[in-house]
């Protein structure tokens, strides 16, 4: 299948074109050759007749007195040497070249022969002399005739050659041109993002590529069906996991609200913490799975300011529970993206900032645009992330040495994954006054 369509077409076309060329040459050559040689022969016949008029009979003998000036005129030719031989009715040669070959048969007429090592053409003419007829052979070399053959062949073959070359050139470029829509199609497919599983538009494609497109679209449909199945599986997995976790949390909190012996309370407290961590981990794993290419929804217009405003209430309550002052500096920040994933990314940043802040700390959420690039950032005044750790904290399950919180090490990895999926960059830095930590996500121009 690695054969070039172009080479294949040329291989198919070349033999018939060559054959046509050959047949064309033959067909053009003979019909035009005949009248031309006829004319040359007629010229020889005329010379023969002229020579014949100089044969006389005198007293039963023959005389031939061709004046030299006439002979010179008759034998002058631009290309060829002209020979002649005058024979009496009895067969004796009375003038000219006595070795000029006679006709191979009695019919005379016109024939080819070899003379003095050259190919010549001879015509024989009869002239009345006395009671009988003298026969006069006139011959010429083949230079003129060979030229004529060459000219005729050339002039009949030339247009056909041009036609053949043109055909090949047209095939060569025509195939390229004809395959142009396919090339554009492959560009279009190459430039597609892996999350784009829409069928390819077959309307603009040439008729011949429709079966290919139909097959390709069938495959895309299967892939997106598989992706939809995965989404359904995720939704179900979420349901199956979250409901028992909710029950576990309900009963643990219920038990903790009752009077308990101190060791039991401490143990139950551990169970409660573990439950909350498990629930958060389940949420994060689902978010990671949903951030995978192919699992994402269609990008839509999302204003990060609106995303923060919708979640602000929940975040403020989380912050209050840890005695953290959560504040906002919100300006419009329009981006193209998946609202669920963007909310998840921001929630993880805010959760981290609250989690790693000291009691009484300050966390600020900002949205807006710098130089036309929408951004969202979260800044805290906690211990911050040392320069050496900044690259590693974005890795999955990595936790900074000596970290005490309940984190799984997935939060920033999720943020990184979601940012990457939106073509956005993450910047880790220090907060105001070189204190704490600031994580910014900057989006490309919408």
């Amino acid at each position: 299948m690695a054969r070039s369509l172009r080479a294949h077409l040329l291989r198919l076309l070349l033999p018939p074109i060559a054959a046509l060329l050959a047949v064309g040459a033959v067909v053009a050559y003979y019909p035009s050759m005949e009248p031309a040689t006829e004319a040359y022969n007629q010229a020889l016949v005329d010379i023969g007749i002229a020579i014949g008029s100089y044969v006389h009979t005198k007293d039963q003998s023959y005389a031939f007195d061709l004046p030299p000036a006439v002979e010179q005129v008759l034998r002058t030719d631009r290309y060829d040497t002209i020979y002649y031989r005058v024979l009496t009715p009895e067969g004796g040669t009375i003038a000219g070249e006595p070795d000029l070959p006679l006709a191979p048969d009695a019919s005379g007429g016109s024939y080819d022969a070899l003379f003095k090592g050259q190919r010549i053409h001879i015509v024989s003419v009869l002239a009345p002399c006395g009671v009988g007829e003298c026969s006069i052979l006139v011959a010429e070399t083949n230079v003129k005739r060979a030229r004529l053959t060459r000219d005729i062949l050339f002039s009949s073959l030339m247009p056909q050659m041009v036609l053949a070359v043109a055909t090949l050139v047209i095939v060569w470029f025509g195939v390229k041109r004809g395959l142009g829509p396919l090339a554009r199609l492959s560009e279009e497919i190459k430039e597609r993002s892996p999350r784009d599983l829409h069928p390819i538009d077959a309307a603009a494609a040439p008729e011949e590529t429709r079966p290919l497109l139909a097959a390709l679209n069938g495959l895309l449909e299967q892939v997106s069906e598989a992706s939809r199945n995965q989404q359904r599986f995720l939704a179900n997995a979420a349901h199956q996991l979250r409901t028992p976790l909710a029950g576990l949390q309900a009963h643990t909190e219920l038990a903790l609200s009752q009077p308990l012996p101190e060791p039991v309370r401490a143990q139950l407290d551990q169970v409660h913490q573990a439950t909350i961590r498990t629930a958060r981990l389940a949420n994060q794993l689902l978010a990671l799975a949903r951030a995978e290419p192919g699992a994402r929804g269609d990008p839509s217009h999302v204003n990060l300011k609106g995303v923060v405003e919708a979640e602000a209430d929940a975040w403020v309550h989380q912050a209050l529970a840890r005695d953290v002052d959560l504040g906002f500096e919100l300006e419009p920040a329009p981006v193209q993206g998946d609202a669920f994933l963007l909310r998840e990314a921001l929630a993880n940043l805010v959760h981290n900032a609250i989690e790693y802040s000291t009691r009484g700390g300050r966390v600020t959420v900002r949205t807006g645009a710098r130089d036309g690039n929408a951004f969202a950032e979260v800044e805290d005044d906690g211990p911050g992330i040392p320069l050496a750790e900044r690259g590693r904290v974005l890795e999955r399950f990595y936790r900074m040495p000596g970290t005490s919180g309940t984190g799984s090490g997935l939060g920033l990895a999720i943020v990184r994954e979601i940012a990457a999926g939106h073509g956005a960059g993450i910047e880790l830095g220090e907060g105001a006054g070189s204190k704490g930590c600031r994580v910014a996500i900057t989006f490309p121009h919408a």
Partner: protein
Amino acid sequence: MRLLIVEDDAPLASGLRRILEAEGHAVDVTGRGEEAVSAASHERFDLVILDIGLPQMDGFEVLRRFRAADKPMPVLVLTARDAVEDRVRGLDLGADDYMVKPFAMPELTARVRALLRRSQSHGGPRIVHGPLALDTVARRAYLKNEPLELAAREWAVLEVLLAKVEKIVSKEAIIQAVAGWGDDLSPNAIEVYVSRLRSKLEPAGIKIRTVRGFGYMLEEFKG
């Protein structure tokens, strides 16, 4: 208050029942949507806690039938799915609040209290918040049963905050609710009204928290 829990996961349902009973409510539990619809058609509930992922008739359908039958009680939807479309669909169908599993019990009880308070005072003439009482018909306020002087705009701001106790309210939302009088209100003006309200209410233990760069939150009254 009379509450109905529609949840097919038995451990979660029993946990919710015990927590809400501990809050002093009478609680019925069912794990089937069809039963919830028929129970609500025969009896009156003050609030329904409704799981979306029910077998056979799902929570969306139950909610749709409640609203089609003109049942006015507030519905708090519980879901294990967090897809944004699900949330929007639930709220479109007339859910009053929405919680994604798993959740902390104090948050659930706070939301149940808020929903009950809202539905009880809905259209009612009297709003009560701890020692504070607003008579919306006579437009008189009382603090610890003493008349409380409130300027018209202070009253309006307080009404907005009282409608969303324990929820943060943006300054823009307050401006929109208060600026019915044709003149522009700046965010600074709102700050002035809130600070006046604070000086009047804080001595009685009623707290208005500032959410930096966002707005305010009237905290739940804690004895």
